[in-house]
């Protein structure tokens, strides 16, 4: 159970039976007035957002969220299917629920699926993943200009900015939080 004073950005609470993330938060208190807790809330299932201002002393249930490791199997044209590798349970997520993670989603990758009351509602990638370059312009030898980058295509179809020496078929480590290239992986 949370109280108004515990509210902050990133906290996940349950409202009317649905999970919400606080995506913006501000404490305000007009002169001699009461403390107010201004929140921008995002519904973690539908993605809809709204603003709400709470006063002190209000109580909130923690959103009952749980992460389970699952393996990405395939896209069936409508949904993305995942499997729990120990129980073989399968779950699916819609394109909207997968969102931008689609850029790094490769078959057989193991990731965390987020559940709210046993319903799959989202996913998070490991912080670092490895993906292969499928298309790249050849390295123009001698181009050592520091800071220069080029775009290469990864096996998921995503185009990422990398240093000029990166070549086709190389394996890259990518930081999924910033969507940035980290380094080449030696095989």
């Amino acid at each position, binding site marked *: 159970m949370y109280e108004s004073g515990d509210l902050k950005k990133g906290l996940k609470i349950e409202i009317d039976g649905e999970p919400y993330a606080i995506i913006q938060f501000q404490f305000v*208190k007009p*002169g*001699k007035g009461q403390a107010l807790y201004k929140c921008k809330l995002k519904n973690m299932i539908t993605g809809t957002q709204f603003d709400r201002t709470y006063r*002190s002393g209000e109580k909130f249930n923690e959103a009952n969220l749980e992460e389970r490791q699952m393996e990405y199997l395939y896209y069936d044209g409508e949904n993305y299917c995942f499997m729990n590798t120990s129980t073989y349970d399968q779950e699916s997520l819609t394109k909207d629920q997968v969102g931008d993670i689609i850029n790094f989603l490769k078959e057989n990758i193991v990731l965390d699926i987020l559940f709210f009351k046993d319903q799959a509602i989202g996913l998070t990638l490991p912080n670092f993943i490895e993906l292969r370059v499928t298309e790249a312009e050849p390295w123009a030898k001698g181009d050592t200009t520091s800071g220069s980058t080029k775009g290469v295509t990864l096996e998921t179809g995503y185009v990422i900015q990398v240093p000029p020496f990166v070549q086709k078929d190389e394996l890259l480590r990518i930081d999924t939080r910033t969507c940035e290239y980290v380094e080449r992986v030696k095989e």
Partner: protein
Amino acid sequence: MTSTRLTSLSGKRRVLILRSLIIRSIRTFFFDHGFFEVETPLRIKAPAPEQNIDPVSSDGWFLAASPELQMKELLSAGFGPVFQITRSFRKNERGRLHLPEFTILEWYRVNDDYLSLMRDLEQLIRYIAKDLLIYPNIKSHGNKVDISCEWERIAVEDAFYRFAGWRPGPYPDAFCFDKAMAEDIEPNLGLSRPVFIYDYPVSMASLARQNPDNPGTAERFELYIAGIELANGFSELIDPKEQRRRFKDEIKKRQEMGKNDCLMPENFLESMSSMPPSAGVALGIDRLVMLFSNSEIIDNVVAFTPEIL
């Protein structure tokens, strides 16, 4: 870890020097205007019971949420115009403009009312700006506020009507009033020149005198610059019977919220029978430094926030 802390502290050097110059300027201003500086205890037995201010307890007593009651006792004892720069403590207040321990400037005039305090504020802030060579425009939060022109004065009723579209009357619903104030009104106040909003509903001014010309309102004002509430002042209530009734009311409201921590400030009430007509105002020094340094958050103008201690 230690080095990150020290780097963050060194980064505040410029603002903290500015802060010390502002405080020097404030002292000079008040001494030049015939005030003298007083000191009152940080740890007190009975703070003013106020519905929306939670005092921090300290070994059976409390840390002062403002120096108000003891400064007024000094007025009752015949001290003339006085000022003080001190720390105040308020539980559960932390945000872009709030620290649970903050620095307050408070001053009182005898045989004067809230209008004189508004004039003091105009003079004080212009004086500091000139001293710091940032007169006449204060740049803050994307606004350029001209402090040399005449400062705007808007009655609370009119501010509500202009920015929120309704009139609060003498006994508005507290939540609606505070929410409209925080969301619709405050962000629009003082963007091109400073603004005083004045004459609050009586229910929102527990220690202020009622306005004889405008019944239902109390002679209380707030100063806003660049959307930031900077100072709160009023013509003092000096009737001990009425003050006791209002304190009882505040204590009752606190009890209804489950807060049974307030004592009646008996010594203060006793001294009030000798209190001359007076007016007093409190100004947040941290917020003043925010304005003069164009800082987005209060964290930038103090060396240590509670989170890094």
